[in-house]
């Protein structure tokens, strides 16, 4: 489905611009999950994210003619979503605190993973538990903004490093650093939660050795 959207994308856009505007529904459909999650990664509030997602889509429609096709449509749309999210955040926080984009990754903080020895004994069923998904959601929501945004784009929406860098206006090496730290923070947060899981069985990923 995604593949199909990719190959037809340019054609679809041309037809929309030529007047078949109803097709915009189809153009947006493969991206709507991504738009919402991008907004949510920034504003961290469901209603606000949904509103922002709608604004993003409307704005994309109005500015479709300015889409040059240098990036993928989804990346372009993500950029609009990020701007929309930042705008909302600024509004919410007030002009006094205009530091959203200035956050950088310092060297403070501990980004080492939590050691454990018996992970591979954790049963596959553990990954199926609702509580674990909930724990992951909470842990992601609690990541510092700069890490959460990269993590959501890379690991939830599965954009590649370059697309993520482009969308956030940072370098690919910054994406790498932030992604690594985000993953390590999540690993550390979730390990204690998983350790309590009972009966031993084979891990989901056997070691590829």
């Amino acid at each position: 489905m995604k593949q199909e959207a990719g190959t037809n994308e340019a054609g679809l856009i041309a037809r929309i611009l030529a007047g078949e505007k109803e097709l915009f529904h189809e153009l947006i459909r493969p991206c709507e999950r991504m738009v919402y999650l991008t907004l949510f990664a920034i504003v961290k509030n469901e209603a606000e994210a949904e509103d922002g997602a709608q604004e993003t889509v409307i704005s994309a429609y109005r500015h479709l003619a300015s889409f040059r096709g240098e990036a993928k449509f989804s990346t372009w749309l993500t950029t609009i979503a990020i701007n929309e999210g930042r705008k909302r955040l600024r509004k919410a926080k007030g002009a006094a605190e205009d530091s959203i984009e200035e956050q950088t990754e310092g060297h403070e903080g501990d980004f080492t993973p939590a050691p454990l020895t018996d992970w591979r004994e954790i049963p596959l069923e553990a990954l199926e538990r609702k509580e674990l998904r909930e724990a992951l959601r909470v842990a992601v929501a609690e990541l510092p903004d700069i890490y959460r945004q990269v993590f959501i784009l890379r690991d939830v929406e599965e954009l590649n490093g370059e697309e993520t860098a482009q969308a956030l206006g940072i370098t690919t090496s910054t994406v790498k650093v932030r992604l690594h730290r985000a993953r390590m923070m999540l690993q550390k947060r979730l390990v204690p939660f998983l350790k309590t899981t009972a009966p031993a069985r084979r891990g989901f990923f056997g070691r590829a050795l």
Partner: protein
Amino acid sequence: MKLDCKHVWEHISEYIDGSVDAKLREDIERHLEHCEICSAILDSTRNILVLTADDRTFELPVGYSERLHERLAKELESSGQDSEKK
């Protein structure tokens, strides 16, 4: 070169993404062969990513898509009035 655990941790994310060079990959794999702790860290991180990519983990609000397309339909309609009708 022999890697220590800390060194492996620093590259674990890139290792998962397949973006370490061949030599480093080999060193990491050699380390993993005998290091239970690093293997467990690698597996746990991978499992978290599996869970992250699961659509059930990050769900959309119920009715999100319907509301989005409804709003869009209104926009398309009103934009049509400008260009097509008087």
